[in-house]
């Protein structure tokens, strides 16, 4: 009965994932064999090439998938147009994220020379002087991308679990690698890891319960068992199925950052290095929503009226709570990264609005929204990575080279005042991204919100769409607040009223990988103990931080431009992408 039958493997259909993961593995070998000087260039070419290759493979597969669903490895992984579309979105956004990760405006990338060194230690200082670089971030990001591509394309719950870990584990590590504000970065990784591991344990227990219920971890079989067509001895125990579905959903909702499982989002998004935050905010969310749609829609086929009602109640509650928390708590934020984190929570709520519809209209709306949200958010985080603090020393030139003067990102909102005068083009792009997030017409966000709320109304969930509209209106308030601040408020350092509060506790060794702690030096000193304080938190009374914007066409600036073009194109001529999305939704049950 348990004879082993080798599965038929369709290598062509697996090629996008193989290319990305293969590039990651080669990247690990590059770390071992390529001399340090050439490593960064090699890694960059390899990862960008790998992602481009995956994109080409997805393009080649697109037509054949439209005509019939490809079974890839036995029945555990079938490539549907929806799965392929999510893979495409993830790969495009990962490609752009990779450019932001590679950005070195200001002379240094965003990653610590050696992430393992204790912040402020002599070892770290030596590593910085030696010019070490953590080029492992490229393969790590590739592995994470590979996991995301698998996450959204599988029917098998255990592969879902493995993919969840493959995408999460590199992200935990990447969160801890920031060059500046390393205490915050490590803390972000710590929180992300503990909460992420906890929810993945819940998820796998849910999978175990579903396996017990249906005798299989294959979604269509579970759906059959739910509909009463299975032959499992435990098929009568509906409580197993309901508990299992809830636990699996908890894991997926955690990954998309929906309330009440959102609490990690603001902390992790704030603490992680900004390029990684952009990558997490965009790609993880796309992949996790892909998986959520797949799981819910497959299992939804087997729901009876009562179960369907229960799942609806769950989704309604989560969607309303997510939108409310994302918009209302977002209003009072003073840190730009934290604010964008709450904005991304709110967007997760908007996508959930479409999910309650359970039909093809909803699926295509989700696809379009993920792309629109992804472009705007990624562009916004790329802009954040370019707005920096600069130390203006009294004796100019004594500090050494130019790049030693550029510090970390100026994330406090007060520091963003008057940015429009310093960098008009970058500010214009940022305003565009904010307007798109708010859903103003002629931007991608408007079409996305229209599609999402339209799907909900189409399915009769108009109260939810109405709440979504109100939430968008509230969120418009805090987006406009930033726009006013950037464009119409004069900069505080121009006005001459001294250092903005956030610039006060600047790290001791200029531009070193120390801690520029925005909440004052004392906060860092206390958990550090006596040992590391002097180097890490020593304030320099003679220096003051001014906000400066990295100009020039670095990779991050290119990403900002590409995202801005994408947002406008999707807003003005959305029909071709909407058609693609509608085609991609066709074969999802």
């Amino acid at each position: 009965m348990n004879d082993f039958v080798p599965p038929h493997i369709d290598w062509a259909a697996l090629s996008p994932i193989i290319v990305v993961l293969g590039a990651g593995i080669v990247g690990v070998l590059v770390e071992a064999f390529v001399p340090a000087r050439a490593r960064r260039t090699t890694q960059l070419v390899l990862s960008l090439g790998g992602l481009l290759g995956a994109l080409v493979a997805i393009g080649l597969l697109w037509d054949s998938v439209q005509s019939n669903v490809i079974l890839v490895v036995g029945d555990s992984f079938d490539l549907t147009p929806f799965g392929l579309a999510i893979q495409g979105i993830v790969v495009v956004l990962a490609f752009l994220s990779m450019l932001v990760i590679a950005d070195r405006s200001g002379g240094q990338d965003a990653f610590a020379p050696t992430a393992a060194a204790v912040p402020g230690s002599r070892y770290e200082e030596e590593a910085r002087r030696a010019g070490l670089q953590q080029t492992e971030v490229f393969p790590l990001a590739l592995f994470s991308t590979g996991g995301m591509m698998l996450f959204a394309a599988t029917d098998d719950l255990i592969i879902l679990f493995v993919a969840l870990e493959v995408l999460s584990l590199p992200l935990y590590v990447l969160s801890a690698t920031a060059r500046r504000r390393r205490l915050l970065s490590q803390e972000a990784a710590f929180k992300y890891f503990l909460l992420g591991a906890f929810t993945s344990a819940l998820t796998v227990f849910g999978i175990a319960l579903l396996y017990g219920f249906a005798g299989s971890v294959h979604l269509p079989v579970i759906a059959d068992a739910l509909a009463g067509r299975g032959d499992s001895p435990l098929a009568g125990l509906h409580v197993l199925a309901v508990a299992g579905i809830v636990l699996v959903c908890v894991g997926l909702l955690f990954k998309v950052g929906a309330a009440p499982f959102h609490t990690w989002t603001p902390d992790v998004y704030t603490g992680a290095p900004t390029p990684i935050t952009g990558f997490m905010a965009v790609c993880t969310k796309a992949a996790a929503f892909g998986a959520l749609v797949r799981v819910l829609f497959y299992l939804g086929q087997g729901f009876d009226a009562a179960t369907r009602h229960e799942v609806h109640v769950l989704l309604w509650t989560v969607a309303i709570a997510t939108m409310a928390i994302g918009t209302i708590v977002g209003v009072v934020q003073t840190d730009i990264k934290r604010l964008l984190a709450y904005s991304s929570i709110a967007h997760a709520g908007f996508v959930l609005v479409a999910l309650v519809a359970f039909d093809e209209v909803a699926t295509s709306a989700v696809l379009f929204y993920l792309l629109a949200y992804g472009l705007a958010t990624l562009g916004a985080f790329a802009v954040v990575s370019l707005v920096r603090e600069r130390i203006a020393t009294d004796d100019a030139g004594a500090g050494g080279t130019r790049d030693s003067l550029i510090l970390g990102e100026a994330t406090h909102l007060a520091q963003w005042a008057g940015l429009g005068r310093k960098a008009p083009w970058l500010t214009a792009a940022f305003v565009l991204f904010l307007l798109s997030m708010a859903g103003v017409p002629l931007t991608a966000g408007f079409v996305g919100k229209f599609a999402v709320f339209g799907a909900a109304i189409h399915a009769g969930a108009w109260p939810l769409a109405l709440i979504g509209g109100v939430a968008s209106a509230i969120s418009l308030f805090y987006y406009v607040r930033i726009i006013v601040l950037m464009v119409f408020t004069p900069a505080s350092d121009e006005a001459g009223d001294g250092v903005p509060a956030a610039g006060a506790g600047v790290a001791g060794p200029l531009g070193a990988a120390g801690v520029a702690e925005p909440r004052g030096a004392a906060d860092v000193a206390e958990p550090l103990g006596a040992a590391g304080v002097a180097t890490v938190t020593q304030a320099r009374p003679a220096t003051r931080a001014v906000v400066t914007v990295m100009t020039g066409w670095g990779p991050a600036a290119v990403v900002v431009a590409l995202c801005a073009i994408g947002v406008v194109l999707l807003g003005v001529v959305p029909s071709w992408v909407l058609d693609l999305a509608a085609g991609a939704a066709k074969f999802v049950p």
Partner: protein
Amino acid sequence: MAVTNYLILAAILFSIGATTVLLRRNAIIVFMGIELMLNATNLAFVTFARIHGDLTGQVLAFFVMVVAAAEVVVGLAIIVTIFRTRRSASVDDVNLLSR
């Protein structure tokens, strides 16, 4: 002894693990709670495999073990890094971001 007893044991172990995660303050202990949850899941998988009479569940237990091992590597690395920086592995001390 009825096979379902093993399921009850798995549920109890899982609850103990979850309670540990939510109540204990030391990151290492919290992490041990997570491991206990994963191993309770393994017990559930194997028991269900016995009930259904197929091997899938036993294979799944191997998958979970491998993933748990990978998680230990990353998790302990992060906890040790935090400990080396702050001389404390308490989850209450890690609060710079929430102020």
